[in-house]
């Protein structure tokens, strides 16, 4: 009832009024696996069987077998009476290798030297060279940053900068370049602060637990606390294990043998953590005691149930792991989770990682669902190969670079992306599950941008450090609630750096990048979309950056081959496409130069301006270079 007279303003209550919001409230149906015999169910999930290193299968054609990879690929083709695609021409093979390992095109001189080198180990030496360069970590680090939903701001209203998030990005690049063993790579990210030999570097690695979104003004603080923990569980289980553990937050997993208690058992490992103080973007424990974790009915923080002890995914059988839970200290627990993930007997970790490596070399994983190894996964196209590679990873000290070599030296990797019997094979195996040819791949936004810079000789190869701000047009800032104020300035030199060093601001992702399907930074991304839409064509036709790079390429070509249009055309082709133009292409290009020279001159005349002949020639050449950047051949790698 209301009092009849004025009284002081009401006291605030808690917002329990609408507390029952199950943000991730999945369906409440009983999971399909629970009705069956749990033990047999989990053992039928292919990804949970122990990794078994089998013998190399026998093949009829032994000449094709260059590395063990081929011995696993060829039998299924031979069984069908199929032949693998012929080897890719060498000038295209080197282009594939450069984009695969560096995300950059080779220079014409590198292509010519490689094609001229007939020694049997020429390609191996090329791979060694590429793997030894810092550009390798810049390329492969980007894949990892996608997986850990990396961005440098919090998102939401203030979208505040996460100070020193770039140090985590540098740690990723450096770790890959150093060929840090993958198990160590995992451990540092989950528990770099809890290692006996913890250092600033290993603490920076725990940025993995800090780079997600952060709402500094959550509607309901209690609920948001669990939302933040869920983000950590989701990032961890997706990146390292390809398990959708988040689905067990409100109820038992619908498809996989993951009871809801597993979710809260794992949550224990993060419950005692917090953002570390100090200049590093690191994670640490709250104190010496970890708060007790209770199962939340329906995932609702206002409805806690029984306490759940720390534990691991019960469907994964790592012998003795249960005992570790008993020994867990009250703090410093994350390292135990990392230990469980990287235990050789955990069947997921190595499989998931080698699948990712395969995926980025072949365009698709052996398991075509790289973020889901559960019941809804695609079974591996070649299970024995997946296991062989997983064993190789572990037996080789978890080092990744040697796997790249084993894969790239194979005949399987070196196949052409077109097959003489394409139409016939595609009828049967359109998705290329038998790996009868290479998959043609479109460059992602980063290598696309970087390649344009590189071809024009503009790429600033400096490594590491704070991110640069690309120029943002007034128009592209329209979407910000505080226009302009939130975008920094970087020098032109800085703006010519590789895309991995570009500021990733959650409320304003650079349109040139998002148009080409860059990751959205809020959730782990294992595989990018590849859409083909008109705004991409508009971007490559009209965006300032692309025009600048076309001008730069023209200037470079003129500087190197000026005064001879044929030489200019040839040079532009070599720089952009790693090959000479065909006769027909050369003729078309020369005609283009003539027509555009005329167009630009008469256009200027219409505007009452005269342009000198050299300027008209330069503009025409820039127009040709611009066409090259738009070619399918430029944006697709064979």
């Amino acid at each position, binding site marked *: 009832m209301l009092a009849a007279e004025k009284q002081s303003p009401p006291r605030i209550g808690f917002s329990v009024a609408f507390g029952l919001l199950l943000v991730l409230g999945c369906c409440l149906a009983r999971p399909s696996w629970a009705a069956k015999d749990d033990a047999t169910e989990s053992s039928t999930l292919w990804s949970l069987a122990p990794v078994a290193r089998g013998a190399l299968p026998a093949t009829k054609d032994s000449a094709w077998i260059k590395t063990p990879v081929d011995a696993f690929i060829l039998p299924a083709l031979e069984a069908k009476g199929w032949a693998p695609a012929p080897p890719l021409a060498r000038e295209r093979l080197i282009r594939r290798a450069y984009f695969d390992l560096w995300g950059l095109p080779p220079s014409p001189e590198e292509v010519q030297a490689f094609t001229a080198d007939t020694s049997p180990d020429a390609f191996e030496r090329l791979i060694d060279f590429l793997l030894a360069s810092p550009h390798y970590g810049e390329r492969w680090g980007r894949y990892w940053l996608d997986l850990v939903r990396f961005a440098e701001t919090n998102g939401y209203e203030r979208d505040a900068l996460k100070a020193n998030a770039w140090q985590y990005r540098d740690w990723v690049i450096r770790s890959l370049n150093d060929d840090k063993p993958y198990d160590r790579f995992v451990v540092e990210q989950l528990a770099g602060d809890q290692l006996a030999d913890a250092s600033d570097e290993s603490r920076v690695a725990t940025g993995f637990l800090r780079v997600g979104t952060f709402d500094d003004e959550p509607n309901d603080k209690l609920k948001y606390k669990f939302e933040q923990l869920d983000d950590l569980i989701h990032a961890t289980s997706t990146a390292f294990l390809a398990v959708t553990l988040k689905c067990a937050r409100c109820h038992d997993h619908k498809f996989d043998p993951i009871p809801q208690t597993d979710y809260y058992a794992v949550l224990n490992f993060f419950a005692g953590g917090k953002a570390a103080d100090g200049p590093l973007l690191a994670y640490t424990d709250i104190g010496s005691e970890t708060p007790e974790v209770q199962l939340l009915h329906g995932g609702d923080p206002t409805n806690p149930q029984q306490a759940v002890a720390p534990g691991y995914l019960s469907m994964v059988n790592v012998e003795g792991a249960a005992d570790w839970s008993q020994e867990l200290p009250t703090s410093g627990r994350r390292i135990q989770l990392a230990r469980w993930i990287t235990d050789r007997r955990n069947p997921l970790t190595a499989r998931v990682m080698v699948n990712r490596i395969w995926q980025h070399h072949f365009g698709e994983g052996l398991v075509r669902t790289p973020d889901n190894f559960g019941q809804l996964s695609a079974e591996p196209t070649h299970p024995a190969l997946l296991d062989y590679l997983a064993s190789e990873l572990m037996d080789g000290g978890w080092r990744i670079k040697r796997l790249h070599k084993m894969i790239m030296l194979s005949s399987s990797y070196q196949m052409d992306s077109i097959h003489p019997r394409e139409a016939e094979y595609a009828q049967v195996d359109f998705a290329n599950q038998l790996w009868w040819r290479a998959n043609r791949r479109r460059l992602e936004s980063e290598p696309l941008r970087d390649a344009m810079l590189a071809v024009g000789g503009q790429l600033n190869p400096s490594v590491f450090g704070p991110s640069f701000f690309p120029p943002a047009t007034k128009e592209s800032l329209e979407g*910000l609630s505080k226009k302009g104020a939130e975008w920094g300035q970087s020098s032109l030199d800085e703006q010519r750096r590789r895309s991995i060093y570009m500021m990733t601001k959650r409320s304003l992702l650079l349109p040139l990048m998002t148009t080409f399907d860059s990751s959205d930074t809020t959730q782990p991304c294992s595989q990018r979309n590849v859409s083909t839409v008109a705004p991409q064509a508009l971007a490559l036709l009209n965006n300032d950056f692309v025009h600048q790079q076309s001008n730069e390429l023209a200037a470079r070509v003129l500087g190197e081959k000026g005064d001879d249009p044929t030489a200019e055309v040839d040079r532009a082709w070599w720089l952009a496409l790693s090959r000479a133009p065909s006769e027909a292409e050369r003729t078309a290009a020369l005609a283009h130069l003539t027509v555009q020279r005329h167009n630009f001159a008469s256009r200027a005349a219409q505007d009452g301006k005269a342009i000198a002949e050299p300027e008209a020639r330069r503009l025409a050449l820039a127009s040709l270079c611009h066409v090259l950047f738009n070619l399918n051949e430029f944006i697709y790698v064979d």
Partner: protein
Amino acid sequence: MSTDPTKRAAASGRGPGSHLFPCGQTRREFVWEMGAGFVGVALSALLNQEGFFGQPASAAESARGLNPLTSKPAQFAGKAKSCIFLLMNGGPSHVDTFDYKPSLQKYAGQTLPADKQFTNSGNRKMGYLTPAWREFRPGGQSGLMISDYFPRVREHADKLALIRSCHTDSHAHGSALVAMNTGSTFIGRPSLGSWAVYGLGTSNQSLPGYVTIMDKRGGPISGQPNWSSGFMPASYQGTLFRPVGEPVLDLRGPLDRKSQREQLDLLAKLNHQHLDARPGGADLAARIQSYELAYRMQAEAPEAVDLNQEDQRTLDLYGVGSQPTDEFARNCVVARRLVERGVRFVQLYSGGGHLEDTWDAHESVEKNHGRHGAEVDQPIAALLTDLERCGMLDSTLVVWGGEFGRMPFAEGEGAPGRNHNPYGFTMWMAGGGVKGGVSYGETDEFGFAAMTNKVHLHDLHATILALMGLDHEKLTYFHQGREERLTDVFGNVIRDIIA
């Protein structure tokens, strides 16, 4: 186990054969998504002709890189072909605009009863219950009570379905805006427009299917996630249109049209030679096609926003050229022109940036809503008139509202402003198969919280989709192991407001 994965997959019924596509989609899901709608690709025409659902999956599969925006049939008959969402950024006060609470007169000067619990957003000062700052009057035959902040919209009362019992999940702008747009307070999910375009495609391949028009004063808080396609392909995201100048980013470059045509001809020639050497390259063919579409879009997008093609009477009706209506009036005319040209979903923001530049009336409702109401009242009324006049109102759903409402009590003793209120607020819809002249749901007598026939965001979203012929429970997108929906596992269609 067979060494042939194609055989194994067939035998198991899952395995790689059923999951060839990004994000673990099955073939059928992939085809459905790729068949969906915008600007792209070679075999879209084939799909259109032969009927998308009747086709064997293998035929569709051979179209690597289909156009995801091809127009698709609705799941059931819905009247609305398009939606114009007028988002009053900042949170307009329902008790001062569309939620008539005469009892606030009676309780003026008292506090909200202590048993009404709420979060004081931003820990602001709290004052006494305060009646509406402007008079409410009945509008139309229906006599719906609407205040003097919207006198012209009130004239259209018989077209409106007021939903006076809305509630949302956050009291903070950043997450509440994202929730209004995506159904979740957490960024990263596809927005309503993305779901609509995913479900229905779009009928004009020379324009984007989903357009967002900002207020000149700035974008909404949280930025891009408000029109993001989240985990769906980028082709479903909102395209930012500017009402003045070039409407789309990168629509024009430095080259004149003749020189650019020259480039495109050379590009096509070289691309075709490249394609000839790569038989079966549907992805390459699709990309070749996208350049022709882009070229057309360069001509058609400016045409769509060219208000010179409207007669003076129409411009005057909206208030183009007059202040303070000019900007929003232009946006409303553009919205009508876009819808007329087949754009599926248009969102207009009123208010941009922060605080008083939006409907965020902390300082003074009268000052703030007086200002913003005057900017939008005439244009919105004109939009309804114009849509009806063009015969488009039945097929165009107009939605009006903010990310939340405002408190029935003042922000401080005797203060003229009001704080955020996610517990109860009003949205309205018109056209597109909505009943006119009706009021649905109620807040309590203070206008503090929704009480009767409560409508959560999920219900609102479910209703909008239903009006467009989409079943929110069946419009799913498989992502990371889950069939995702706009409405999560919630949402009830408000049947009572559907004609």
